[in-house]
């Protein structure tokens, strides 16, 4: 089997090499998968990974899809760095979308520039509060935050469904489980005319810069780093573990909530039961692929968005199953975790005899 020896110093280039080699290995994996599925692998890869980049439509869709991924992953990375495992971003995203959307609907048909900021604020706060539930339970009762945040995701999705089937249903909607369409004041401005690319992407870029600053220059980033290394050292440096847990869940929940309201006031434009489509989970991959680094997350968010768009295109053009996207994303994370071993350890193959 393998033998791992800890490397004395970690090669700086590994920051790029690990994600790139993981992406390379995943591409080889899907290449073989396409052959097994009886499709032309080169053509399939071209349609998924290149073609969307060649059209204005493709680029604008990339912007649309990457926005929630990047924003959620920024929040997640904050917690992951601190050793706080919030994996319920999907639920926080759903709550943000629901509360933000409900705010817009509540003021229908009043219009004004104030409407979106109010809705955004409501979404951020409610996402953060929803995120605080596992945080508080973790801090007060030592409850496993992974399980609680995940359970709350199911609750949030059901809650959205109850709302859309119930109080928020469009009164003129022939009983379809959808809210009324948001009026113009509740819709995010478009960046490029004729596309769906909206200003949410600019918000994402702004957040990338902010998060980079927070993590590298600010005290908060320092304490997050300490928390991720050692809770004992954190206490010694004067911050309690609970403070970090609360902060992580607030930031993560708030950002996921923001991503939710951006999505409903951007490309969707109303509340529907199918708002949660797994961005909250894909964002976990984005966070890891981006090495928990804001700039890396930005690039990783674009790549994962590409797999969504390319996956849809391949479904239409080649009849490839849409599930390919999910498989690619899962495999990518596997390869990434495996490639990580190469940065930290010198690996050699040795024969070892086993004994139980």
């Amino acid at each position, binding site marked *: *089997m*393998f*033998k*791992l020896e*800890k490397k004395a110093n970690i090669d700086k280039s590994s920051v790029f090499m690990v994600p790139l080699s993981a992406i390379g290995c995943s591409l080889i994996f899907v290449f073989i998968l396409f052959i097994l599925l009886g499709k032309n692998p080169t053509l399939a890869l071209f349609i998924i990974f290149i073609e969307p980049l060649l059209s204005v439509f493709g680029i604008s869709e990339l912007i649309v899809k990457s926005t929630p991924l990047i924003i959620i992953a920024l929040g997640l990375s904050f917690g992951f760095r601190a050793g706080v*495992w919030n*994996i319920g971003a999907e639920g926080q995203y759903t709550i943000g979308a629901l509360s933000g959307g409900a705010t817009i609907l509540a003021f229908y048909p009043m219009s004004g520039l104030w409407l979106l900021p109010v809705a955004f604020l409501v979404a951020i706060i409610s996402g953060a509060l929803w995120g605080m539930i596992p945080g508080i*339970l973790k801090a007060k*009762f*030592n*409850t*496993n935050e*992974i*399980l*609680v945040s*995940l*359970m*709350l995701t*199911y*609750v949030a999705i*059901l*809650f959205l*469904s*109850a709302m859309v*089937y*119930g109080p928020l249903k469009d009164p003129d909607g022939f009983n379809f489980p959808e809210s009324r369409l948001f009026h113009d004041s509740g819709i995010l401005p478009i960046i490029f005319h004729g596309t769906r690319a909206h200003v949410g992407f600019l918000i994402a870029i702004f957040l990338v810069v902010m998060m980079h600053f927070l993590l590298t220059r600010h005290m908060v980033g320092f304490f997050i780093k300490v928390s991720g290394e050692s809770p004992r050292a954190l206490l010694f440096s004067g911050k309690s573990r609970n403070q970090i847990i609360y902060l992580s869940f607030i930031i993560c929940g708030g950002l996921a909530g923001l991503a939710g309201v951006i999505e409903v006031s951007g490309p969707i434009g109303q509340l529907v039961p199918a708002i949660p489509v797994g961005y909250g*989970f*894909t964002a*976990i*991959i984005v966070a*890891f692929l981006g090495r928990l680094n804001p700039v890396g997350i930005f690039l990783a968010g674009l790549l994962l968005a590409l797999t969504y768009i390319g996956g849809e295109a391949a479904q239409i053009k080649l009849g490839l*199953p849409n*599930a*390919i*996207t*999910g*498989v*690619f*994303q*899962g*495999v990518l*994370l*596997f390869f990434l*975790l*495996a490639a*990580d*071993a190469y940065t*930290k*350890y010198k*690996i050699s193959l040795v024969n*070892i005899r*086993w*004994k*139980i």
Partner: protein
Amino acid sequence: MDLYIAIFQGIIIASTPLVLASIGELIVEKSGVLNLGVEGMMIIGAVSSFIVTYETGSHLLGLLAAIISSGLIALIFGILTQYLLSNQVATGLALTLFGLGLASLIGQSYSGITIESFPSLEIDILKNIPIIGDLFFAFDYLVYLSVLMVIGTYLFLNKTKRGLILIATGDNHDSAHSLGYSVKKIRLLSIIYGGACAGLGGAYLSLVQTPMWVENMTAGRGWIALAIVVFAVWRPLWIFAGAYIFGGITIIQLHIQATGVNIEAQYMSMLPYVVTILVLVFISMNKNRLAVNAPNCLNKLFTSDI
């Protein structure tokens, strides 16, 4: 009376996949590994057993397929976490995401097809005992297997040397290593076993509970199985209590919905998840009780050579 018997039977059938998956995960965690990929392993078990059963007509081959395929993807997790020393939480999440994706890929053309239902225990003498027969002898083989597995796990951990070694590995891997036990091999085997159990749990969903394949049909049961292990505070016999409580809530809320109570269906469907959270809180409040039974090395990196 018949209604109560039906509810009881429904609870057992709803709980069995949870029993199977969580008793496997209990072994994994006792050895000191946290595998969060139960959901992914279950869904792979569900889809592979369904396809093989549909294609061959043999339920037994279907079960075998579930055991092998889920064991294999658990092996990926095992190699990554034990030999390439990847983070267990991240790798478990990856396993779940990968499993869900792969299952919908290979199950795509089998969506909505139904198969023959699973054979149940057919011992007429026992089955015909009034009430008792319906309550205890009217189930499929897997229900009885799940009961045996829990009891077997209890005996294995508490009465055998190998069980002691497994617990010791989870308690202190460095000590186990210095005594000459191969921590990585013990853990790898546990992980594969846990995968096989989760696979069986998944197979129960697609072969017995609803004999058909539906995308994402595990619907969070893998996560609930993880919660049950915590609820049981890593004691095998308590897995029953945990699983039957959650199965019970699922079934009872369905029956309440059926009686036409004026509560939105979605709120009733939330119940199992909400109860899971409440139970986790209740169990976790007593830190010392958890500390006595929780494996000390759970989710800790073991980096020693051999």
